[in-house]
């Protein structure tokens, strides 16, 4: 609030110029303590005059005034002169102080006004700074735009220069071509002039003429005809006939082509209708909104069109043509949409299908395989094809090698047997083992036969022994008949066993 302080200062200043009496009568803003006049009743009363005097003298002494009392025999009497002098001194002091105050106030005013000015200028400068910053930004932006412009213009200039260069090249080549032609014409002209001169100066003029032994007949054997108006018209008619023939031929070819193309278009259209209409049945079972296109009405209208078109298929007029092409376009669009749907469905089916499409998936499961599966299948097949091709290639190479290498007889003989070699080796080995086994068996047989012979001998010996033993027994037979019988039994058993034992080794042979 510089204004209010300024007013205050003003007030103060005003109040300082007011006469003292008024000053003291009014109680203005209590700014300065020694301006404030409280009233003398409060300080000194009848009772405390001596204290007041003492107090005042103390104060005066403190301020450096001489004492206002003079000391008379211990009684402090008020020295009026020094009191007045002190009062005068005080008044002077007061005036000085007031003067100083006024000065200070002036100083303060000046300083505050300076401050105010500074603040104003500061704010003005800040505003200016803002403005200049904005200006700067604007100028920067403009500079940037201008730079971009110059770049674009440079580019244009470059292009134009290139264009100019190209055109200059063209002009140069044309100029050289013109010069070349001009020179050629000049040369020819020169030659012509020379020839003309030569002809003018040349006395004998070599006539042109033909010297032929005899005239030959025309190549087609006919006689030449007189030139009359009839021949002219005949030529004209011949020419037009040739042209017409050509046109006819052309038209016939175009008609054939046209008919073929129309047939093809019809076929395409029918096939498209065929493809699209069975979808309609499968589409009805699903809750898909997409195949809404295949409605009864549409199919009916297509069939109608077809029927109506059958009548006009032979017409080659504008209307029929347009009809056909429009219907084809329509069908094609439908087919495209259908294919797009299938594509989307194919992708979706591969990812986790949402519930609404599960039903759909079941419906057209067998017709659709997802894209990824299809691609994998393709990759696999391609790999297989590549492998087969490599295999065939290597086989061919080997075959060629075999057929192409030249052989001599030995190696040929060796080589022709090469496939049987392995088998031969195997057979040889088998023969070897066979022979070994045979040998082994022979040996065994021999040993067995020897053993059998030995056994036979031993048996004979045994039998003889037995016979002698029995004889002995029989001869020594007394009371022990039963015992002999027993022993005989046991002996017979033993003999049987022996026989068995003897006969058994024969069997392995």
């Amino acid at each position, binding site marked *: 609030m510089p204004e209010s302080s300024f007013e205050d200062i003003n007030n103060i200043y005003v109040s300082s110029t007011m006469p003292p009496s008024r000053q003291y009568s009014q109680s203005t803003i209590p700014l300065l303590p020694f301006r404030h006049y409280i009233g003398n009743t409060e300080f000194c009363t009848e009772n405390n005059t001596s204290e007041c005097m003492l107090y005042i003298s103390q104060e005066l002494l403190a301020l450096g005034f001489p004492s206002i009392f003079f000391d008379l025999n211990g009684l402090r009497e008020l020295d009026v002169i020094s009191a007045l002098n002190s009062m005068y001194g005080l008044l002077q002091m007061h005036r000085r102080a007031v003067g100083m105050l006024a000065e200070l106030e002036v100083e303060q005013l000046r300083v505050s006004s300076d401050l105010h000015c500074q603040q104003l200028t500061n704010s003005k400068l800040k505003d200016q700074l803002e403005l200049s910053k904005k200006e700067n930004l604007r100028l920067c932006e403009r500079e940037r735009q201008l730079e971009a412009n110059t770049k674009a213009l440079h580019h244009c200039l470059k292009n134009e220069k290139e264009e100019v260069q190209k055109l200059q090249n063209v002009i*140069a080549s044309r100029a050289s071509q013109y010069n070349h032609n001009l020179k050629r014409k000049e040369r020819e002209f020169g030659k012509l002039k020379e020839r003309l001169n030569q002809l003018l100066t040349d006395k004998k003029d*070599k006539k*042109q003429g033909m010297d032929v032994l005899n005239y030959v007949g025309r190549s087609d054997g006919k006689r030449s005809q007189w030139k009359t108006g009839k021949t002219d018209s005949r030529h004209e008619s011949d020419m037009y006939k040739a042209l017409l023939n050509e046109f006819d031929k052309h038209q016939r070819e175009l008609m054939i082509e046209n008919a073929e193309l129309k047939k093809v278009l019809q076929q395409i259209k029918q096939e498209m209708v065929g493809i699209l209409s069975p979808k309609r049945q499968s589409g009805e079972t699903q809750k898909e909104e997409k195949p809404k296109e295949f409605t009864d009405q549409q199919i009916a209208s297509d069939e109608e069109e077809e029927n109506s078109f059958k009548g006009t298929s032979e017409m080659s007029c504008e209307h029929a043509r347009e009809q056909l092409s429009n219907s084809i376009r329509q069908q094609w669009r439908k087919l495209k949409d259908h294919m797009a749907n299938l594509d989307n469905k194919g992708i979706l089916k591969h990812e986790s299908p949402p519930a609404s499409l599960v039903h759909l998936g079941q419906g057209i499961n067998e017709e659709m395989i997802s894209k990824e599966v299809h691609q994998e299948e393709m990759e696999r097949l391609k790999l297989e094809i590549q492998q087969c091709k490599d295999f065939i290639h290597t086989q061919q190479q080997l075959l060629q090698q075999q057929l192409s290498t030249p052989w001599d007889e030995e190696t040929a003989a060796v080589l022709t047997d090469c496939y049987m070699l392995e088998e031969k080796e195997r057979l040889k080995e088998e023969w070897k083992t066979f022979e070994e086994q045979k040998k082994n068996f022979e040996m065994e047989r021999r040993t067995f036969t020897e053993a059998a012979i030995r056994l036979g001998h031993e048996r004979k010996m045994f039998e003889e022994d037995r016979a002698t033993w029995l004889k002995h027994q029989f001869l020594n037979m007394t009371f022990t008949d039963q015992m002999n019988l027993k022993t005989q039994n046991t002996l017979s058993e033993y003999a049987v066993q022996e026989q068995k034992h003897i006969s058994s080794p024969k069997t392995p042979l």
Partner: protein
Amino acid sequence: MNFSEVFKQSNQLCKVSPDGKYLATCVQYRLVVRDVNTLQILQLYTCLDQVASMEWSSDSLFILCAMYKRGLVQVWSLEQPDWHCKIDEGSIGLVSSRWSPDGRHILNTTEFHLRVTVWSLCNKSVSYIKYPKACQKGMDFSADGRYMALAERRDCKDYISVFVCDDWHLLRHFETDTQDLAGVEWSPNGCVLAAWDSCLEYKMLLYSLDGRLLSTYSAYEWSLGIKSVAWSPSSQFLAIGSYDEKVRILNHITWKKLTEFEHHPTITNSKAVVFKEVEKRPQMTLCFSFQFDSASHRCLVSDEIPPLPVQVPVVKPDPDRANPKIGISAIAFSVDNRYLATKNDCMPQSVWVWDMQRLGPTAVLEQTAPVRFFAWDPRRPRLALCTGNTKLYLWSPAGCVSVKVPVEGGFQVQSLFWHCSGDSVVLLGKDQLCLCYMTKGHSALVV
């Protein structure tokens, strides 16, 4: 492939008769007629001066020999060797001489293209045609021989005159909207006449037989334009080769561009097979008793197929010269309309073969030297080309083959042409000629 002996010829003058039975060669001032199969000399004629141009008549009964310096044309009869005919143009000079399609008239173009004189061998009539134009291809006969189109120029304007070859009656005469008419060509069916402007302006005009303008085609402005033109044998396509290294194909129904073939120096199209001739030392003499008994093999002797992408060598032309060596200078259709062979002058060592069914390149033949000449077999899609070295190169859809001409001392093949039956090729060297007989049963080449 069997090669005949080498015979002398001068001036690359060697022509097979239209019926395919005789071979006529000029050696200096002599005209030698041989039998094509046995190559025995059947007739020998002597002309008055060195022969500059020689041509068979359409019925193979007469041969004309033109001597431009002397202004003389001599006509010889095969049936009657003692028949003679001499046409003297006198002081007016002679610049070109040719037969008419009926084989009984001779058209002589005088010096400075002052006029065309039509001499008749049947009667005493002489016709004159004034103001023929001196241009790339100013005169063309239709395929059936009935009409002749002639480019004319008078009063700084171009005209085309259509004559009936029967009696040289002027059928049509019309002005063309060209700056400088460069050439005319009939379509093979004889009903459409193509006329094109000089290279300073790209303009192709198509006229009907009766003189109506059917269509105008201009691909671009200002840059150099048409360099070469070819009709397809069925008249279905018109191929225009231009200086911007592209061939544009027009179709005969709408006369609008069907496609354009670009000769890009980097080949990345996987359908195009690049056959690159590689110098192999020592040079092998090639094998033409084919040891391939199995079905068609790519026979790549001294050719290899480099992997794509392939860079075709480009020769930058001198920009300051007129008629710069850039652009499609040669186009030819194969006889079955299936293939188109082109040569770009700034890739002089390569011949491009395009498939007209797929409308894309099918082969690029890259040789070690600039290709001098190529020609299609008149019976089947087989292309023969030569580069001025001792080899003959053949391409067919089955593959590419090169044969060295087995002549001692080398035989630089400068030019070649096929016999009308397609069974043999006549190779022309600097002053020699040689016949190459294709044996039947070539698995790699017979299509």
